[in-house]
């Protein structure tokens, strides 16, 4: 496929851990917008201030950094389940959340959910569902790596208990074992194409063949681990190769994510269709990530570094 023909969204990627090469490659492969969910950083934080600065980075520097590569950056803000288990810290983070959830470009509360499925995790998960309802934005659910199927069902049950409309909830990191329940109950089912642990993209193709393209969302979850920031473009290409229609690819790699997260009122196709002309002052002479170099227009085969 000519990759640039289809606009793509990666609705789950941790760009604070990625390089500018990744941004360039994503742009080139047709990614027009990304969603960066707040999550843990590979090791547990010990101070609330580091959460605040992390959230600031998501609504500030990272958004700007993405814009320098012509990619629109959105984020989700939340207390992740792993760190919910440090209760004294979790309490402080919960106090911080309302100050971020109404900010521009914050499209959901997330990633929230279960990790070890502890009582503490459940308490903060519940509180954050209520926050999402209060602010009027969707939820992005992280389903656990261990005891996944039970954790996924339990997550949906908790949403139901809180009267959360399934259409406002994206359940992420699905696999063959969870997808049917999630779709049957009316939730959005997202899949992280993440080598070795979550999903491979050949399996993804089979899932779409089996379950269709409604309410299915493909993402990379690329982060600081061995992961692939081009997982969405590669999966889109593979789907076309394996005979899925362009319309289907458009839905699972673009439109479904847009539909789910635009319910926040913070994400619209117009944001990237209108592109940089919305405010030229923001992107006029890209310079800071480039540190004085001229923007790279095309890949060079030369070994000369100017």
């Amino acid at each position: 496929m000519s990759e640039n023909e289809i606009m793509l969204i990666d609705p789950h990627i941790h760009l604070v851990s990625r390089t500018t090469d990744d941004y360039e490659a994503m742009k080139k492969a047709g990614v027009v917008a990304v969603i960066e969910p707040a999550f843990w950083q590979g090791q547990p934080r010990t101070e609330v201030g580091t959460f605040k600065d992390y959230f600031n980075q998501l609504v500030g520097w990272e958004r700007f950094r993405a814009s320098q590569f012509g990619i629109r950056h959105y984020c989700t803000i939340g207390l992740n389940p792993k760190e919910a288990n440090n209760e004294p810290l979790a309490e402080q983070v919960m106090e911080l959340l309302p100050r971020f959830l109404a900010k521009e470009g914050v499209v959901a509360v997330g990633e929230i959910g279960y990790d070890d499925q502890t009582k503490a995790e459940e308490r903060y998960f519940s509180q954050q569902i209520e926050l999402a309802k209060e602010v009027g934005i969707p939820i992005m659910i992280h389903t656990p790596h261990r005891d996944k199927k039970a954790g996924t069902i339990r997550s949906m049950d908790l949403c139901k208990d809180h009267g959360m409309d399934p259409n406002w909830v994206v359940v992420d990191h699905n696999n063959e074992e969870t997808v049917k329940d999630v779709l049957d109950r009316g939730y959005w089912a997202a899949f992280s194409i993440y080598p070795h642990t979550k999903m491979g993209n050949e399996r993804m193709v089979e899932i779409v063949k089996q379950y269709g393209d409604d309410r299915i969302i493909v993402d990379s979850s690329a982060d600081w681990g061995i992961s692939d920031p081009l997982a969405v473009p590669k999966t889109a290409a593979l789907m076309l190769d394996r005979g899925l229609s362009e319309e289907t690819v458009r839905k699972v790699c673009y439109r479904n994510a847009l539909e789910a997260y635009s319910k926040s009122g913070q994400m619209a196709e117009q944001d990237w269709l209108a592109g940089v002309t919305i405010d030229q002052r923001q992107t006029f002479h890209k310079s800071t990530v480039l540190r004085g170099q001229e923007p790279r227009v095309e890949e060079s085969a030369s070994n000369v570094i100017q």
Partner: protein
Amino acid sequence: MGFCGLGESIGYQQLNMANDHVDQRAVKDFLYELLQRQITPSGREWLDQKLKQVGGDFTERDFYLAFGMVPRRIGKGPLEVPSAEREKAEALLGGFAPQFWTIEQTGRTILLLQIAQQGVGRFFEVVDKLFSTAEVGELVALYGSLALWPQPETQHGRATEGVRTNMTVVFDAIALNNPYPYSYLSEEAWNQLVLKAVFMGRPLYRIYGLDARANSRLAQMLSDFAHERWAAGRWVIPELWRPIGPFLNETYLQDVAKLFDDPDPMQQEAGALACSQANLPRARELLDSKPEIKSRIESGALSWEDLGERLWASRKG
């Protein structure tokens, strides 16, 4: 506030004492008038309601939410400011130029000015917290309006810190078309601002008070920067020579002489403009070598302002 700027002792605000007496209410009314032409009735209704709320007994949470929600309630995009209104802005505060602002920035500034009338202590309490969790657009509104706040002289440490940002749009809100740095930054902080603008490739002609605050230390820093760029075989922005012009000496003249041999006409113009600011025989000689440029300078057709505008118009395309 916790800010103790290095330039405390310099007290540059004395240069422009008039800025200490900005009438916040008048500025707020003026901005409101501009804004209401461009927003929908429902946007205006929301803004009126929030102004009423934060004009009374408000909670901080009310304010943060309102401040954050501005773009989704009243919209986004450039603020339109007709030329007559630009003069009014200038009369309210020299250098105040809302024609470079956005709709959301204006809405947020109106909210800030509303709470500024509730007492300075409360205002700075709220503003401190706002800064600590502000996103890009919010930072633009905060830094862009510093000069309009009560007791603006207390904020020079904040502005100095803000200049360290690498987010272009935030840097621009402080550095470009904003009278704050001119009036309140210490010489060290001012010089960093100008040098950083050069480094980031920002239009120098949009820095308010650039000529008035030219100084010999800045000239030296800019000249060193040009040498670094030349050594690396890189392009040097012609506007760099503008603050050097008033301090031309034999050493800088050797640099400027090189511009006259540059194939780029704008580099030649920059060299000629710098020479026209000096009263040195060698500078006059150089200027005489380009009679066409010299006559345009003498007739007023060529100025630093005009060079800057043309340069940045061409780079935009």
